């Protein structure tokens, strides 16, 4: 059973054991618009919590994707690099961006669950 967490920067992380799968939320893709370019981190890169790990770009603008928790990149989703529009179609499913081996699972405590994230998004409208 995996646990799902969200950030104020509109990333999600689904955690199973010590592996977290990270993507951007539906709210994020709606606000970014049609994505045309995705840049993912190299496998093996160690990234500290809150640092930029990936970039998603729409026709108009580039946005950083931050890692919600520290860890080492163990896998990236090449499908979204080949077809960035997948992120618009299924941002919280098939269009995950990368997987991290978590350095410190206790960092997850600072994140929101879906209900809290939903309430947070409502305050932004």
């Amino acid at each position: 059973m995996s646990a799902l967490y969200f950030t104020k920067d509109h990333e999600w992380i689904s955690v199973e054991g010590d592996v977290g799968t990270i993507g951007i939320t539906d709210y994020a893709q709606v606000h970014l618009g049609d994505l045309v370019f995705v840049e993912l981190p190299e496998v093996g890169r160690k990234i500290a919590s809150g640092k930029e790990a990936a970039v998603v770009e729409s026709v108009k603008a580039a946005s950083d994707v931050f890692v919600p928790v520290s860890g080492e990149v163990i896998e990236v989703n090449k499908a979204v690099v080949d077809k960035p529009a997948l992120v618009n179609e299924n941002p919280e499913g098939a269009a995950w961006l990368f997987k991290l081996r978590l350095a410190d699972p206790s960092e997850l405590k600072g994140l929101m669950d879906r209900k809290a994230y939903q309430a947070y998004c409502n305050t932004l409208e």
Partner: protein
Amino acid sequence: MDSTELAGLARTPLFDLHVELGAKMVAFAGYAMAVQYRAGVLAEHLHTRAAAGLFDVSHMGQAELRGLDPAAALEALVPGDVQSLGAGRMRYTLLTDERGGILDDLMVTRDADRLFLVVNASRKAEDFAHLRAGLRGNVELVELPDRALLALQGPRAAAVLSRLAPGIDGLAFLSGTRAMVAGISCFVTRSGYTGEDGFEISCPADRAETLARRLLAEPEVAPIGLGARDSLRLEAGLCLYGADIDTTTTPIEAALAWTISKRRREGGSYPGDSVIRRQLAEGPPRLRVGLRPRDRAPARAHTQIAGIDGTALGEVTSGGFGPSLDAPIAMGYVPAGHARPGTELRLIVRGTPRPGDVAPLPFVPHRYRKP
């Protein structure tokens, strides 16, 4: 954008219609403008190239020059040839400063004894003050704040507008005429900012919504926001004031020498004429060029441009993604010696030098109506 952010912004006569159409509103040049509708930037861009797009450009500044020989008076402020404009003809030109920098770009149309001007929204207050201060003789600048401006652009634009204004297809590219469009008195020019055939329609502000709804009722027409307007003009290699041209760029550096006729090169007297004449004779130190990244990473405005040896060359001034090309495109300035199409260079995107090439402009061929 929430209601408090919108509150301080000016609105065009089509504001309510944009909201009704599901537009995402953003601040642009002090106006609340539609950046995209529900279809999104990609679909709106491609629709304009395939059929017809309707743009609200009512934020732009419209004015008339009236009086005795307004063309001669305007030529004291622009390097373009205004006096040779025939009746109903239209031309792109530039307001320049004493150093040859560009204060704004504008469209000028001769409408009988008047000149009709369209200037950038972000510059209109400065432009109008500059014109009032600089127009000599018995010439008056009359602002037209009670007029809206709609652009209908795309390969089906002429067919659509002909239904509402029979005979309008006879209007030549870069010409203007007074015309009744759907029973509304308009000034229509065959022009635009997309590289496609199309029209810009100046109409009374209080009739703009009626006209826009009438155009949107045609099956080929979709509303298009500023997002697609920007990607369309970039593919067409057209300058955006404040990005590609400003007071630090001359018309020659901006590759806009074509806007200066032989007569005005030889005898023109206008702000910055000595700088511009010298650059015409000796060549400019740098030039605006098209840029094509070799991979798929967009090189946005202010991306540094370097040579293959790492030497700093210049900066991207407009950059993003070209939906019709399905590839990133950009424009920027490089030293004249690096401006030849095919010159390989590096675009420093997020710290990483990525290969790219100088490319001919426009990226997408213009499809203006042939005479």
